[in-house]
């Protein structure tokens, strides 16, 4: 996205604003053009969202199979309980279900890891993260770019996973999925002010790692 002169002039007016406003202003530029049209059927909606949902779940859970389980469970629950709702409500309902499912899995894993550490059977290799599932490097038009993107995504995923849970959710929903503040607040079950605070703190934590993603 090309920056304009208005952005530069606007920096002066932002001089006394809080960091929350800075983050939101920057995000407003990134978020332009991310509004997606409502799907006509529940099947079309699921087909349009399943890949992004799986990728978000994989970043949060660092496990492809658990991410698939979480997405599948969210699909089941949306179809079973909310398919009669208006199509405009499906995205927030779906992301809300998926967020709760991911949180459940994260908590369950935390308990399991504590038990394993207590019994002395845990694997404590922090750098043993698996690279995300990806197409074979020679199947794309530019294998070098695919490889670099793969490495960059792995670095970003590691950085996001180190965030506290609420900051992680705010970053995934607001930045990666492009939900607006009100929608993110609805999905996270908190106020819009809390969303801004969580996102601002997440960006503070991630700011120093930007170079690793490039």
């Amino acid at each position: 996205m090309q920056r304009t002169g208005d952005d530069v002039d606007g920096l002066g007016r932002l001089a006394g604003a809080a960091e929350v406003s800075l983050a939101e202003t920057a995000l407003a530029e990134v978020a332009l053009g991310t509004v997606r049209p409502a799907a006509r059927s529940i099947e079309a909606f699921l087909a349009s969202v399943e890949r992004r949902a799986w990728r978000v779940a994989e970043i949060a859970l660092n496990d492809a199979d658990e991410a698939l389980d979480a997405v599948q469970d969210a699909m089941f629950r949306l179809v079973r309980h909310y398919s009669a709702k208006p199509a405009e409500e499906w995205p927030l309902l779906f992301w809300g279900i998926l967020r709760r499912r991911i949180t459940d899995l994260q908590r369950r894993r935390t308990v399991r890891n504590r038990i394993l550490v207590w019994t002395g059977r845990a694997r404590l290799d922090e750098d043993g993260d698996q690279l995300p599932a990806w197409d074979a490097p020679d199947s794309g038009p530019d294998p070098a770019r695919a490889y670099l993107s793969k490495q960059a995504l792995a670095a970003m995923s590691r950085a996001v996973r180190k965030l506290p849970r609420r900051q992680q959710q705010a970053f995934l929903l607001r930045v990666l999925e492009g939900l607006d503040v009100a929608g993110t607040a609805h999905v996270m079950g908190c106020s819009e002010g809390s969303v801004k605070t969580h996102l601002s703190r997440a960006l503070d934590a991630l700011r120093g790692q930007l170079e690793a993603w490039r």
Partner: protein
Amino acid sequence: MKTSPDNQARDRNIDYGLMQHARALHDYACEHIDAGTRTKLAVARREALAAKERRPHRMIWLPATGAAAACALVIGLALFKPQAENPAAPQTQAVSTGDAELPLNADTQQFDLYQNLDFYQWLAQQPQTHANPRGGRQ
């Protein structure tokens, strides 16, 4: 903590680049998911939609199954209740354990007879030539 306008402008630039790059990376990654995962996601979607179509049939059979189970329970209770409330057999069994020689249907009036059975057998074997107490012959 207050930061200077220059620092805020720098942070804003970093945030802008960070979020733009993260979004682009995420979009690219979502478009390049491996074929196996894409297939699994499609299967999961179809199963979720199929489960919705199966659900009404389950809802129809649920009350019928419950009613059938309730009927079977009532019939079972009606059949087994009389036997459970009949105390005769256990009481007879309890009396019979008092003396192994007594028959199962012995009641209390004949109890003395069976206890002095030897005496009555001896009495029956005696010749019937005894004098009548009133002086007559039998």
